[in-house]
Structure formats: structure tokens, C-alpha cells
């Protein structure tokens, strides 16, 4: 199998699996007062410190969650609620138009259930948010904006956002800035303290850790109303028994991914560039979507004119190649990607797109396998587009 869907989830590191298994063999609730509990707590706190160190945060700023979706919901809703409670006219939320659904749908929920006004920041044809656009919004609505959320890098097209500029702009105006860095950590340098962000989402399974554990890095002075109520285990912002084994494995993965990031990015970007070049040679009219420069090293995202992305996916899958249409599914039905639509692509181009993402286990063999199958698949998928015309 050629696995070209690392942005969906990437294989766990052996070290992370070992850390998980080792912790899972020991009993102990980190909140218990006895020796077993203290032992588990020690593991959790050491993990917290390792993650904090890797991402330039204070340990107290690391709030463990169940992953990216929870962290995004906690940041957007929680900060919105706290900010509105402090000042009733803060009812506006700003997010980019190309956010992951974990942010977009949370923000949409704030609109429909909490009466929040929403401003979606537009992107250019490479999927990049303009700092000027945020500046203009802040000028207009400074006192009304409760929270701003812009992803560090896009999950579909891999475009890296000007996070430092955006976050510092928000900070200058005293507005909390959240960034979903799920796709960024381990791929590019991520420094929470230097970024100027008030909150940052990271998750385990995109960087070699387990699924179901992640964190919200939350600045110490940032008020955030909890989503989950209960034991108040995490700074009273997040309740639920701490997942000792998951947290331990997560920390190992974060530490490794950050430590090896530079070397990893150089190797994987070379491989990705080879993939892009060879795809363009094989399918000359293929369009590479996203930014040319500021791009995640493992991401290659194409539109294949005249093809349906899901037909291509089926054909490649049948040849043992795993990739993604990169878009959200409802009942498994591919919707045209909101990211490509926001970039100004039409429906056909959005539906004809396919994402290939490389990761730490990728080799040139994966690229070879893709190129062996792709031209035939594209040809068949093009023929299949004729089915759309009723007889």
C-alpha cells in the first residue's frame, strides 16, 4: 500500500506506542492521592513539561483534551463566552474562510445559538489570509470582537498562514487570537510564546501520537469558559479523567516531531517536490492548488480537470493508493471543498481535486506507486464524468 494521506492521520511512532503500552500497564488515576495516583500524575506532569518545552509554552498553559476538535471548540466557544461575560457588546467572532470544520462549525454554532456575529476573513487564490483584511475588521469592530481564530496551516491545500503578523495584530488590540496548529506542529517551526497567539490547538495523531489525545495551549491570562464540567482536572477549564497513557505517548510524539522537524521537512519537501514534478509531467493539465512557497512540506494538492475527485480516489484505492479528496463528508458524500471555493475556484475545479500528503514513513516507492497508477486512473475518471449527462 502507498499511504499518501498523512494529513488525515499518520502512523504512530514506535517510541510513542512503547510509551503508551508502558503507561497503560500501570494503574493509577492522576487525581488520586495515593502512591499509584501520584505515579500517574508524575507521568502526566512530565509529559506536560515536555510538550510545553517543545512548543515554547509554560507547562501551566498546556490543557490536555481529546484532540483537535475539542481544542478548537474549547478555544472558540470558551473564549467567546468569557469575553462576552466580561463585556456584553463583545459578540463578534472572526475566523478565516478556510478553517477546518472544527472551527467553522463551532463558530457557526455560536452564530445560530448564541447570536454571535461572524466575519470570515477572505483568502487569496493561494488560500492565504490577508493581514490587511484583519486590520480593517479590527478597525471597524475592535470593541465587539470576542475572539479571532486563524489556522496555522491549511489541512487541505497546505498553505501556511502569516500567523505571527495576525496574532500580533490581534494582541496589540487586546483581542485573544486562537490558532489551529494541528497540521503545523512537527511540519514547520511552531513557537507558542513567540507567535503572539493566546491559544493554540495541537493533536497527537497528526504527528505520530495516538488518536484521542491533544491539547489546547492557553495563555495563563486568557479566560476561557469550560465546555465540559466535572472534576476540573485541567486548570478548571477542562474536566475528565486524564488519559495518562495517551498523554505520555502524545508527549513522546510531540518532542520527537519537533526535534526532528528541520531534517524531516527537508527530506519530505524534496520528496513532495518530486511528486509534484512527476504528476505535472504525467498529467500536464493538472493544477497544483495552494501556495508555491509557504506550504507544508508534505502537502501536494491538485485539481485534475475533467475528473471527479471521488472517482479518482476509488480508482487509486483499488490500486492500493490511499489519498483524500480533502473535503468534508456527509453520509460519505463529497461536498465541493469550502477551501477551494474560498480561493475562487469554481465547483468543477473544487470537485476535481485530490490531496496527497506525505509523512515520516513516506519513501520514493510511494511516489513511484502513485505515478504508476495515476495516468490510467485520470483517463478512466475523465471518461466517467460523462455519466453526469443524463441519457
Amino acid at each position, binding site marked *: 500500500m502507498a499511504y499518501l494521506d498523512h494529513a488525515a492521520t499518520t502512523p504512530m511512532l514506535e517510541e510513542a506506542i512503547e510509551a503508551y503500552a508502558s503507561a497503560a500497564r500501570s494503574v493509577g488515576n492522576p487525581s488520586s492521592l495515593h502512591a499509584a495516583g501520584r505515579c500517574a500524575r508524575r507521568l502526566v506532569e512530565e509529559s506536560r513539561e515536555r510538550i510545553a518545552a517543545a512548543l515554547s509554552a509554560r507547562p501551566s498553559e498546556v490543557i490536555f483534551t481529546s484532540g483537535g476538535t475539542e481544542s478548537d471548540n474549547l478555544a472558540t466557544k470558551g473564549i467567546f463566552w468569557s469575553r462576552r461575560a466580561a463585556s456584553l457588546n463583545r459578540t463578534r467572532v472572526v475566523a478565516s474562510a478556510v478553517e477546518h470544520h472544527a472551527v467553522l462549525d463551532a463558530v457557526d454554532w455560536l452564530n445560530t445559538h448564541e447570536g454571535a456575529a461572524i466575519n470570515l476573513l477572505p483568502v487569496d487564490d493561494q488560500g492565504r489570509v490577508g493581514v490587511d483584511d484583519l486590520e480593517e475588521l479590527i478597525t471597524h469592530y475592535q470593541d465587539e470582537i470576542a475572539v479571532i481564530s486563524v489556522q496555522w496551516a491549511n489541512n487541505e491545500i497546505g498553505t501556511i498562514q502569516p500567523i505571527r503578523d495576525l496574532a500580533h495584530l490581534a494582541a496589540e488590540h487586546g483581542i485573544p487570537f486562537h490558532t489551529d496548529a494541528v497540521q503545523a506542529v512537527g511540519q514547520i517551526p511552531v513557537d507558542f510564546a513567540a507567535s503572539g497567539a493566546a491559544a493554540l490547538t495541537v493533536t497527537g495523531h497528526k504527528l505520530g501520537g495516538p488518536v484521542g489525545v491533544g491539547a489546547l495551549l492557553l495563555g495563563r491570562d486568557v479566560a476561557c469558559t469550560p465546555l465540559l464540567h466535572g472534576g476540573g482536572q485541567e486548570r478548571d477549564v477542562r474536566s475528565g479523567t486524564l488519559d495518562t497513557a495517551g498523554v505520555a505517548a502524545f508527549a513522546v510524539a510531540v518532542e520527537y516531531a519537533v526535534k526532528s522537524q528541520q531534517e524531516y521537512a527537508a527530506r519530505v519537501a524534496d520528496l513532495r517536490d518530486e511528486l509534484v514534478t512527476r504528476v505535472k509531467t504525467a498529467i500536464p493539465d493538472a493544477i497544483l492548488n495552494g501556495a508555491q512557497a509557504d506550504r507544508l512540506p508534505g502537502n501536494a494538492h491538485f485539481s485534475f480537470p475533467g475528473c471527479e475527485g471521488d472517482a479518482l480516489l476509488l480508482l487509486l484505492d483499488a490500486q492500493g493508493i490511499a489519498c483524500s479528496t480533502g473535503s468534508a463528508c456527509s*453520509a460519505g458524500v463529497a461536498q465541493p471543498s469550502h477551501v477551494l471555493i474560498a480561493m475562487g475556484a469554481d465547483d468543477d475545479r473544487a470537485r476535481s481535486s485530490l490531496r496527497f500528503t506525505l509523512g515520516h514513513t513516506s519513501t520514493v516507492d510511494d511516489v513511484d506507486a502513485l505515478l504508476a497508477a495515476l495516468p490510467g486512473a485520470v483517463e478512466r475518471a475523465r471518461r466517467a464524468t460523462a*455519466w453526469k449527462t443524463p441519457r
Partner: protein
Amino acid sequence: MSGGVDSAVAAARAHDAGHDVTGVHLALARNPQTYRTGARGCCTLEDSRDARRAADVIGIPFYVWDMADQFHENVVDDFVAEYAAGRTPNPCLRCNEKIKFAAVLDRAVALGFDAVVTGHHARLGADGLLRRSVDLPKDQSYVLAVLTRAQLDRAVFPLGDSTKAQVRAEAAERGLAVADKPDSHDICFIADGDTKGFLERRLGSAPGDIVDSRTGEKLGTHNGAYSYTIGQRKGLDLRVPAPDGRPRYVLSITPKTNTVTVGSREELSVDTVTASRVIWHDSATPVECEVQLRAHGEVVPASVVVDGEGLTARLHEPARGVAAGQAIVAYRRDPDGDIVLGSATITAGIASAELQTAGGAAHA
């Protein structure tokens, strides 16, 4: 794979037969919730999950294909337009004709597949003849008879030799969780089963007269002629009783004047059926055969002629409640399962002079 037991077992049998099988579930509504029909229908998210689980158990790849636009255009809109034109459509037949063995088949062939396998209860053997299922109450050859030779050549119906009970038992043996899932009966895109309400929402209220077939007398009013079906007795809500006190039936619907004509049971009888859009397989006509005039309806012996005009069936016994828009399907009796000779869309049921003397009036 609808998520029901039939398509799951059909897929399993095709897989066992050594074919390279891929499961496909059709998404027919952009928002699947809009077609949610509780435990009975299909096309819901739950059905999609059931189909996926069945594919997992069988061990085949599984995909959802978005056919919402095609389905809407060719089946739902057609259904509404047919009622608006005073005819009685069969959406399952239309779905087979335009979606499963057209849009799906075309796409599948283009992608490199050879055939579409479905869980329909009908036989299609090496001789290429479409026959009734061994399970006559579950037989679906009526809604498949619309398929052309080319479509049948790319169709596989693995269940025709089995009864529904056998299919369920086999599903249970195979560990398919859908083994005891209830059958779907309703029109899948009418969530609550209220066809009249569905048509009212689409077509609006259009009041008109209900008139007596013999006297032309106005007996009452209706809110939309599309709500009536030929042969319908209930729900006429007529204030004036028939002179002989006997029940009255819908004889015809005339969209032009928005009139529903009612009369006696005898007047419903016809002995000639004309039909258009003929699909006919090989056999020369006139041919003595049996015709079926509605889904799950009885068969009537008839003499069928196919010519440039269409299809005409002279019925050897009168039939009642023959509605334009339904299919007439001709069968030849055969010990290995009655063979489909052809199919066409009914344009009119006509009573001959003899039959009229016996107590009926001609109606279109």
C-alpha cells in the same frame, strides 16, 4: 447497496462467485435527513452505515456515490410532472431505468467495472432472458422490464432463484446485521408516506370539479386532480350519493379541464390497453401472452401487438383500474419462471363496444 438485506446478500453472492466487487451506496438527497423515513425507507444516514457495515463483513470496498441531482431530475421531478399530467407514475421503475442502470451503470463502466449487481428479485440467466423471481409475491421483474437489452447485458441479479426468506436466512448465516431489517415499502423520497401531501406541496392547490361519467353532473370538488388515481374509491367525499346507492370510483383524470370523472365499478373495466415508449425483446407480434398492468397486480391473458404506433394489448378478460403512466409488462408463461417479453408505458385503457354494452363507457 441500499443498506437493506437484499443488496447485501446480492453483493456477498457476487463476491463469492469470484467477481471483483465494489459496494456502492447511492446518496439521493443532498441532505440525507430530508429523506429520512424511520425504519421503513432507504437513503438515510443509518442506511448508509448499514450498507457500509455489510460491505465490511463481506470484505469489499465501499463508496457512497452522490446521485442526488440525477435522482431529483429524473425520478422526483418526473414523478411530480406525471401526476400533474393526470398520469400515475412508478418511481421505482424510473429509478431503475434512469439511475441504477443508466447513471450508475455508465459511471461504473467508465471506471472499469463490467456490470451492476443489484438485490432485485428477478432472474436473469445465461439465456439473457429476464424472468420472474421464484418468490412471486416479492418478484420485481415488473419494475425491471423497462431495461433495454444493452442495460440487461450489464445487469446481474443474484437473488432471483431465492425466496426472501432464504435471503434473510443466508444474511443471518453470513453474519450480516441487516438480516432482519424490515422491508421498505414506501416511496423513498416521500418521508412520511403522504403522497397526496407531497404533491400538494409541489403542485399547490388546484380546485376543480368531480363529475359523473354518464350525466356530466358536478358531484363535488377536489383540491387538485393529481391527488386521485384511476380506480380510487376512498376519499372522494361526494355529497350526492349514486342513484343506485353503489360506490363510485375514479374513472379518469383530465388535467386540461382539471376534472376528475367518477362512475360505477363496471365503467372501470377496459379490454384494450394502448402504450408508448416500448421496450420489446425479439419475439414477433401479435403474440398471445399475459400482461401485468400495475406493480404487484394480477396478470391478464392478452394478445399484444407492437408496431410503429406503440403497443396495443387486447385483453381476453376485462381489467379494472388501468392508469395511464403505469407500465404494461408482457410475460410468456414458462416453467422456469415467466419470461418478460417487453414493457411499455400505458397511455390509455379503452372499453370496446361489447364491453360498454355490458355496462361501461369508454374513457381515456
